[in-house]
């Protein structure tokens, strides 16, 4: 694999994570820098994801680079049966960097093996989405002033939610305490609890989204409970409103608590939370732009502060 690619948050060290956070901060202060002048970035979205694609493309545009690509596989040659390898090889002739999203797991890792052009994984099925993790880390660091020694409560779908899994793994460097709040069907998988045990990470499991959990947290990381995750639809109907955050529930929360959500949210955060200063999910999405600018510059070996 070419070393500038970013396929999984596991590929980068603690120092690199901290470096990316520093750079994201720099881009937040200087969002329009023409450091990508003359560079072409391909955004290959084999699976549609408007939010992520717009964020990456805005990042490139604000840095003065150019974007080529497609936003839906049906408009690309993969609809004609072209292999991923051939598409990647073809695009490698044109672009300095490839940002790709694919519905198949492992697609981005494979892409790094067929080209020397750096690859940024913008999501491969339910596997990895490292730029989401970087923006989560940046949001936590920015709102708390640190990453170390925080209590993070993860709520909702902890079984299938790749964002919580990646965040959990990336936080291993920073001595966190986790609260896992989920119904029986959507508990944190055993392999991630084992990961916590191996790395000496403290965690508690709850089925109730209780004041005790909320009031002890520095970060509330909410996720969407999706109907299609349930084998028993009655079970979904029973639990769908148990993990909804309402403004009144934040009354006794710590002053530094912030509510994060990878978005889109449906009903797991009530609209009445939006005006609470602790609601941070829209700013979190904005931080994605700066985190992605940092990731793009790392992939291209560009130091914005030296240009």
């Amino acid at each position, binding site marked *: 694999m070419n070393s500038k690619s970013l396929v999984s948050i596991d590929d980068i060290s603690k120092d690199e994570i901290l470096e990316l956070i520093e750079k994201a901060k720099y881009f937040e202060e200087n969002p329009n820098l023409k450091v990508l002048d003359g560079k072409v970035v391909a955004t290959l979205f084999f699976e549609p994801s408007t939010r992520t694609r717009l964020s990456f493309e805005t990042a490139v545009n604000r840095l003065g680079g150019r974007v080529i690509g497609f936003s839906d596989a049906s408009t690309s040659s993969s609809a004609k049966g072209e*292999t991923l*390898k051939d598409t990647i090889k073809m695009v490698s002739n044109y672009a300095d960097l490839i940002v790709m999203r694919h519905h*198949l*797991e492992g697609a981005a890792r*494979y892409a790094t093996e067929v080209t020397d052009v750096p690859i940024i994984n913008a999501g*491969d*099925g339910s596997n990895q989405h490292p730029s989401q993790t970087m923006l989560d880390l940046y949001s936590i660091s920015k709102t708390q002033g640190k990453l170390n020694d925080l209590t993070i409560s993860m709520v909702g779908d902890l079984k299938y939610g790749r964002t919580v899994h990646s965040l959990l793994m990336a936080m291993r460097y920073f001595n966190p305490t986790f609260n896992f709040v989920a119904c029986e069907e959507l508990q944190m998988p055993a392999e991630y609890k084992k990961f916590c045990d191996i790395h000496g990470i403290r965690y508690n499991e709850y089925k109730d989204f209780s004041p005790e959990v909320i009031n002890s947290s520095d970060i509330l990381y909410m996720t969407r409970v999706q109907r299609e995750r349930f084998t028993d639809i009655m079970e979904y109907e029973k639990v769908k409103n148990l993990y909804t955050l309402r403004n009144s529930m934040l009354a006794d929360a710590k002053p530094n608590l912030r509510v994060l959500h990878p978005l889109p949210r449906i009903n797991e955060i009530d609209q009445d939370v939006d005006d609470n200063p602790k609601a941070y999910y829209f700013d979190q999405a904005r931080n994605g732009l700066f985190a992605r600018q940092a990731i793009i510059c790392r992939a291209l070996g560009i130091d914005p502060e030296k240009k």
Partner: protein
Amino acid sequence: MSNDKKELAVAALENGTVIDHIPSKALFKVVKLLGLENVDTHLTIGNNLPSKRMGSKGIIKIADVTIPEDIINRIAIIAPGAKVNIIRDFEVVAKRPVELADTLIGVVKCSNPKCITNNEPMRTRFEVVDRDNVTIRCHYCGKTVNSSDARIC
């Protein structure tokens, strides 16, 4: 059963390879993995034979063929306790256990239907994450599989 008949059941090899101590359940997977259906020399496959250590075992004798070590080691994923004997002039000239490599390329299929390896013309790659329980992890999608559930490519 007379001694003559015993010898007939498991004929001695002049030259070739004997793979012994294969778990009975894994025997035909081993046959497939080594591509033995394409061997045209004498081939003896025995299964459900009594074994003091394993209770029941399988054995494969391949005449006049020496299978390269890296190929034969692939069976470690499904038959980690198997022993390989190399025979020359009716004598065992080498005897060793199969060894599980750190990385398995093109040996087993990923059980995740959404894995890229099941959708592109490419070789699979697994890394061994737990030698004691023979657990392997897909290099691409990250799915872990226990060896007993591994499907051969």
